[in-house]
């Protein structure tokens, strides 16, 4: 077995005008040339979809090894007008500076965009982009020459519901990448519900609107997809989903699906191995809260945060509702340990959206980032405790299994945050963050905490699943084993870097890397040098 080694740029990418602070994050948005600004169509009419915000993806669209950035934008709604139509934007990472290549790449969709996911769905070696909209969704096929073409209609995935998060996955284990699209509610501006608190107009709850079933599209392998929503068992017309994560939650070798829903029970779809799903949320104790309420679920992420080899789940929820930290108790049951973990109390004052696990301080333990912000910019008019702009939360994992809030000005600057993506943008070995804000600028936060060793694995699977979605890696260093799984979409409307990053603490070498590829074959790498990105191709 031979692994391909590629050493990434280990050097510090100097960023003009941005002074690094050791042990903290730095807002480098302007310094790196990102000028993206979100619009939500706001006109004062409080259209239901306005507060949803949009997502962001970190992807290497040009295959040069560094992370580029794709930001989804909203659009004008009735009553709002913009001189120039808002559009999505693609920024190419050119050695630390981001260059807007939207026009050249042809990915500036001007529909009312929400979410995105990234994967090489056609197995041609170039990552593609799926964008969810209020209105028909878009599938940008990467042509490999720096440009994309929208093939959604031809591919049969131009879902015209109000779609939110989405994820690529191999649902039926045939090696072809399928697509899961979370649909939220049935929305029509002409019948937008008006909700008030006293004299104050506020955004309505999803209870004011009918739900909408998610969709599962099965790849036929010829570039087109078949809608298998009902046949696969994921048809639930009353659900009101926003976030999705995929992964082998019960360690049986296939990809399960978890959907965070807003005021309806969260959904846990267990895969039978052939792409048939059974919803088990209530019985697995992940559908509703401890006090038996369906919370306002927004984003969701899965990762093995307690290091026991089972993927756990974090869900962001509405203000005054704790975020969930569902600890996996063996694949069949989960236990919400949010308070025990130190996340619960801190999350209560916040309205959480974007969420992702990553080892931000490279100590070998997965930390948790949550993007926060309220719905209503006039929240104070009816809620004395409400804050529109809220600090984001970075919870650093402690040796005792708990988490501690990381008090860093760049993180805790109040913002109406929404989507978030994590990845090593500057290739210095620690995980940076990109956060979208509602009706405001996209924020790039550089992590300057790299004080420990690390290793990033870039897996190259066998075609057609060249991104190796669903591959699982067990890495052992200094006697500690960490587990990661590749994914094709997670969090809230967003897509973090799909490469697998491991913080290693003081370990200056890795003892063993065990890879279980999506087709079940295993590969073991022996002692491996650290502080680099390792590209591993499936033998």
């Amino acid at each position: 077995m031979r692994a391909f080694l590629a050493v990434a740029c280990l050097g510090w990418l100097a960023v003009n005008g941005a002074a690094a602070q050791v042990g903290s994050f730095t807002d480098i948005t302007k310094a790196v040339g990102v000028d993206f600004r979100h619009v939500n169509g706001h006109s004062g009419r409080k259209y239901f979809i306005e507060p949803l915000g949009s997502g962001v993806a970190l992807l290497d669209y040009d295959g040069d090894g560094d992370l580029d950035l794709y930001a989804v934008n909203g659009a004008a709604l009735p009553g709002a007008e913009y001189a120039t139509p808002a559009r999505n934007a693609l920024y190419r990472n050119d050695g630390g500076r981001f260059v807007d290549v939207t026009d050249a790449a042809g990915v500036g969709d001007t529909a009312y965009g929400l979410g995105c996911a990234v994967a090489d769905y056609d197995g041609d070696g170039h990552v593609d982009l799926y964008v969810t909209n209020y209105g028909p969704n878009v599938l940008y096929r990467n042509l490999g020459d720096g440009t994309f073409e929208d093939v959604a209609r031809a591919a049969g995935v131009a879902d015209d519901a109000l779609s939110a998060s989405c994820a690529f996955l191999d649902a039926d284990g045939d090696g072809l990448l399928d697509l899961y699209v979370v649909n939220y509610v049935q929305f029509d501006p002409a019948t937008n519900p008006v909700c008030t608190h006293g004299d104050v107009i506020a955004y309505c709850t999803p209870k004011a609107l009918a739900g909408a079933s998610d969709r599962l599209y099965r790849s036929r392998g010829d570039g087109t997809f078949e809608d298998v929503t009902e046949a696969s068992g994921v048809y639930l017309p009353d659900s009101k989903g926003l976030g999705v994560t995929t992964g082998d939650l019960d360690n049986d070798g296939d990809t399960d699906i978890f959907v965070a829903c807003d005021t309806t029970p969260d959904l846990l779809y267990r895969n039978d191995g052939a792409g048939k799903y059974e919803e088990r949320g209530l019985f697995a104790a992940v559908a509703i809260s401890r006090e038996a309420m369906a919370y306002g679920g927004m984003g969701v992420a899965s990762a093995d945060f307690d290091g026991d080899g089972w993927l756990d789940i974090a869900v962001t929820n509405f203000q005054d509702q704790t975020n969930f930290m569902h600890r996996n108790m063996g694949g069949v049951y989960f236990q919400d340990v949010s308070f025990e973990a130190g996340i619960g109390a801190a999350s209560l004052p916040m309205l959480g959206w974007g969420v992702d696990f990553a080892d931000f301080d490279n100590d070998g333990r997965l930390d948790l980032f949550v993007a926060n912000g309220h719905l209503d910019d006039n929240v104070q008019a009816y809620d004395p405790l409400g804050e529109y702009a809220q600090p984001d939360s970075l919870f650093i994992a402690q040796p005792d299994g708990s988490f501690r809030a990381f008090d860093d000005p760049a993180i805790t600057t109040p913002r109406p945050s929404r989507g978030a993506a994590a990845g090593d943008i500057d290739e210095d070995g620690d995980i940076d963050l990109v956060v979208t804000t509602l009706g405001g600028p996209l924020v790039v936060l550089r992590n300057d905490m790299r004080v420990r060793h690390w290793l990033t694995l870039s897996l190259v699977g066998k075609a057609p699943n060249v991104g190796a979605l669903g591959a699982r890696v067990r890495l052992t260093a200094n006697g500690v084993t960490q587990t990661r799984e590749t994914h094709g979409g997670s969090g809230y409307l967003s897509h973090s870097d799909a490469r697998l990053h491991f913080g290693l603490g003081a370990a200056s070498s890795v003892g063993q890397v065990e890879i279980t590829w999506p087709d079940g074959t295993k590969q073991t790498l022996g002692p491996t040098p650290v502080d680099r990105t390792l590209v591993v191709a499936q033998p």
Partner: protein
Amino acid sequence: MPFAYIRVGRTRNREKHMRHGRTANTLGHVALWLAVAAAAGAASAPDALGVDLPRRIEAHMATLRDDPTRLDARLALGRLYLTIEAFDPAAEQYEAVLAAGPGEAAAAHHGLGLTHAGGERFDDAIRQYDLSISYDADRAFVHAARGSAYAHLHRYDEAIEAYRSALSLEPGDAMVRHQLGLALARNGRIDDALAEQEAAIASMPDLASARLELGSLHSGASRWEEARREYRAALALDADLTQALYGLAQIAMRTGDADGARVLMEQFAVAQERSEEVGRLIGAAQRASDRTERAGILASLGRLRLQQGAYDKARQTYAKACALDPTLAGAHGGLGVALTMLEAYDDAETAQRAALRIDPGMARAHAGLGLIALRRERPDEALTHYRRAADLDPTLLDAHMKVGDLLRGERAYGQAAEAYAAATGADAADAEAWHYLGLCRALNDQPDEALQAYGRAIAIDPARVETHFLTAELRRRKGDGELSLAAYERALELDVDHARAYHGLAVLYATQLEDVDGALAHAEKAAALDPASARYRNTLALIYYRLGRLREAEDAIRAALALEPDNATYREGLERILGSDDG
């Protein structure tokens, strides 16, 4: 559709959804800490919610009209306003107390703190509690309320400290200990939380919310038996704690009882649906802009509580409604019913008469007085009230039914039938009214009219076993053997253990269908199902006798006599059997 039977969440718009949890707790905060203060002898308790609340408010207001310097009356009035969650007028009283000087400053700042908490202004509430403590640091309930305000702000470290201050002054306060436990759990200090909840329960075993929390804590530690015990205890103490059902379902799943889990999950779904409606009304009441509107919504909530059998909660809710709007006759009437169900008949009568003073033509109040009389076992008085209610409101089904029931009890079947007929006029879709109309017609020797009424009852509700049975009996007596047989069989389809139907069939087989063997089989079945029935034994004896099985006939009739030794008919039967045997 795995969630087809699960309906969770709230039917509210976003801001209602967002605010509800906190607001509900806010009101809980005020009621809770009033209760704690009351326990310390410093305030009136929510339990004081009763029929005299409007009168007490008016009395204090009268006192203040005579002498505005009476701070004791202002404090008492403020507390009463807090009790009914009328925060603005409460604040006016407390501010007036403070304006008069520092003499009652500790109490006034505490009261003001509660009014701020009621308005979700917890920072302001804490400031007032701090001021109260600055005047008098030894009032545990103020420290506790301060802790609760911090908890509402999710500032659990400060909440824990404040609760501990309260407990240092009142170590035996179970409620404060329970709240401390909740704060500790939210801070992730599970073992400490568990210890506090156990201590709370040790001193107040019926503290349902502590039982629930303890169940959750045990469940989190996979101590299934302990968790199950606490969840069950919580449910037994307060059926509104539906999350205990969910917790029990989870335990069933975790311990391998999938069927049990499914049953519990279904129960949970039903209970959740019920609590949703309660939550919707609570939310509406909290958002109501004026007292009259709020009183009306609370009256609706009280009615729902009555329907749910939550009489004490109904009493509290109606009492608040009455205090918020003393002219709301329906609330007084509802309060009367709740008090009746709680067997507080004197207060119940006071409430109903208050309703009638407001609205002398209020039929439901007369019906309420009828119910009180019934409970007091005064049927004549009850009949008078119910008749008056029915006269005032001919659409009041319950009044007609009660009149019918009372007259039927007096064997006045003709008059009873008239009352039930009036009931069917009030609601032609009420199967029970038709059933009893049929019964009274039958007892009044009007079989055809009776069958007609039974038929209407069955058309409305085909699953009425008793109506099928009575139809069968009546048809048997009329000699309609086949129709009787069909009706008995329908009754038995609906209830396979209906002993009287088997017995009726036995008689039918023996007397009209000329099938003695069939009669015997049914008689044996009836006797087996109800061994204590002497009548069934007698029928069995008769059938054995007709079959010439005299030994068995003798055994059966002796069994009947053992059950009813003085029954001359059975004795005569025994003699006849013995006589035949001799012959």
